[in-house]
């Protein structure tokens, strides 16, 4: 990779790093925080499966992101990703809930605004639907999965030691699935804006051909893995120890519900199957794993007697949902202007 290209991709790689640092905790946070799975084990599984998910199934959500605004210059893509990364950073600094999915959409809309191009309202509504639907779906799924797990456990009266054994293995398996889904769904945030301008030729590796986009996704996946290894342990411990105390079975259910939602919003084959059977398919859109987790926890809270749902958290999600893309779009517009007029970089094709 030439240094110039690396410089342009750096904003996406930074976004990937922060994604790995923050969102791996949604998958392995409870397991590592409660010492059910060691961090080294979690980091290895998460990294491998994030990269696999990104390379194998990353195209679906990325494609929809491309429809929002096909950024066709490297400086433009750089600025859109940088705007997303900066808004994530700014909002995190202020302790506001933030999603890289929403940030990157704001960054792209900013590019559209700067170019004077209209943003397709049909595509925007797909994103809006997905963002509202994903925490709700995660909530419904976690409630149903939990009721099912409870009914089974009460019926079979499995020994507590064995139950914990199964739960630990389940956390590792579901964690791997969750990491795969995170890579498949969220790689679009990290590398999606660069797909149109990807300079890589197709790469033949034995029987496998890595397309230009897949090579970008591989690099992005590695950036996520670096984020997981360098920074996610602290976040995992915070998620597992400080925020919610879940029983091991509930922790497993939360991760599974979240992973299923991310998977549903990333699976091209499932969407194709639904369409082929004349069923409404979910849009293939990057959604926020953090918001899916919060949705899943609220779902459990609603079916647990005596458990108080923290509606202030729900309100924060809604605020983040409106604020993040707005802030990212503003930074993107201003950034594009600066790149073009101060640094004389070709933001426009």
């Amino acid at each position, binding site marked *: 990779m030439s240094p110039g290209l690396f410089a342009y991709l750096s904003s996406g790689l930074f976004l990937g790093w922060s994604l790995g640092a923050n969102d791996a905790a949604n998958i392995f946070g409870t397991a590592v925080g409660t010492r059910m799975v060691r961090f080294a084990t979690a980091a290895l599984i998460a990294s491998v499966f994030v990269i696999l998910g990104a390379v194998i199934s990353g195209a679906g959500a990325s494609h929809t992101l491309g429809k929002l605004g096909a950024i066709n210059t490297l400086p433009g893509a750089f600025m859109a990703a940088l705007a997303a990364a900066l808004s994530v950073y700014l909002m995190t600094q202020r302790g506001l809930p933030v999603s890289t999915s929403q940030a990157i959409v704001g960054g792209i809309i900013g590019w559209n605004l700067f170019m004077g191009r209209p943003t397709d309202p049909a595509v925007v509504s797909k994103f809006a639907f997905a963002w509202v639907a994903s925490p709700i779906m995660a909530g419904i799924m976690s409630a149903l999965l939990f009721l099912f797990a409870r009914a089974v456990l009460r019926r079979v009266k499995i020994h507590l*030691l064995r139950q914990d054994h199964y739960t630990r293995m389940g956390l590792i398996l579901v964690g791997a699935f969750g990491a795969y889904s995170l890579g498949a769904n969220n790689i679009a945030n990290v590398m999606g804006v660069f797909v149109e301008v990807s300079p890589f030729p197709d790469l033949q590796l034995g029987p496998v051909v890595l397309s230009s986009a897949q090579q970008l996704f591989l690099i992005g996946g590695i950036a996520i893995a670096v984020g997981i290894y360098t920074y996610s342990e602290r976040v995992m411990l915070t998620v597992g120890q400080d925020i919610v105390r879940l029983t*091991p079975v509930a922790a497993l259910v939360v991760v599974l519900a979240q992973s299923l939602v991310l998977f549903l919003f990333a699976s091209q084959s499932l969407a194709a199957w639904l369409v082929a059977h004349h069923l409404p398919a979910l849009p293939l859109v990057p959604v926020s794993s953090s918001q899916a987790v919060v949705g899943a926890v609220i779902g459990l809270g609603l079916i647990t007697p005596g458990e108080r749902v923290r509606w202030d958290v729900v309100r924060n999600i809604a605020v983040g949902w409106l604020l993040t893309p707005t802030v990212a779009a503003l930074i993107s517009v201003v950034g594009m202007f600066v790149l073009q007029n101060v640094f004389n970089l070709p933001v426009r094709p």
Partner: protein
Amino acid sequence: MKLPSLFGGTRGLEAQIDLYFDKVQEAGLVFGRAMELYLERGVSEGFEELVRRVTEVEEEADDLRREIETQMTTHTLIPELREDVLSLIEQVDEVTNHYEAAVYSFYIQQPVIDAAYRADFAELARMVQQTAEEMVTAARAFFRDLSAVRDHVKKVQFYESEADKITTRVGRQIFESDLDLAQKMHLTSFLDRLDSIADTAEDIGDKLSILTIKRMV
């Protein structure tokens, strides 16, 4: 990377925990029989034999407890459960220690129990053994059927309060009697010693309630 071993270790540990509770129950039964014999005949050959037996069972339970503790610390169990189980077993161990200490103190000090109080002492011994017996059933349920723990803990609380009532009632009667102060003190110290078995069982019952709420799915 260390992945959990498949069920072999867990099954062995489950069996050992079951065996451990068997020993605690056995200690209770031997204790109950020893108390009956003492109250009937004082220190007799049969009683001495049962005192030896309580010691043996207590030692067997101790060996099992140590083995369980070693296995649990090396075993890949979820740490929170491991800590809970270890502290539970440590606390249950106090009950067998109390059984042993109680029969030994009868063996060594040979308190003279007036005929008027014998039935009460026998009833108290039965009640404390019943409390501990229900505690063991509750502890077994904690591992196999969480929803049943509450019922057994309720019984633990009932028997413990019955034991308290007997201790108070008989204690008052003893102090109202014409016995000399030394003997009054001597007899009530035995009431307290027996009652402490039920108290310990009740503490374990309370702990089990909390552990169950934590684990309830």
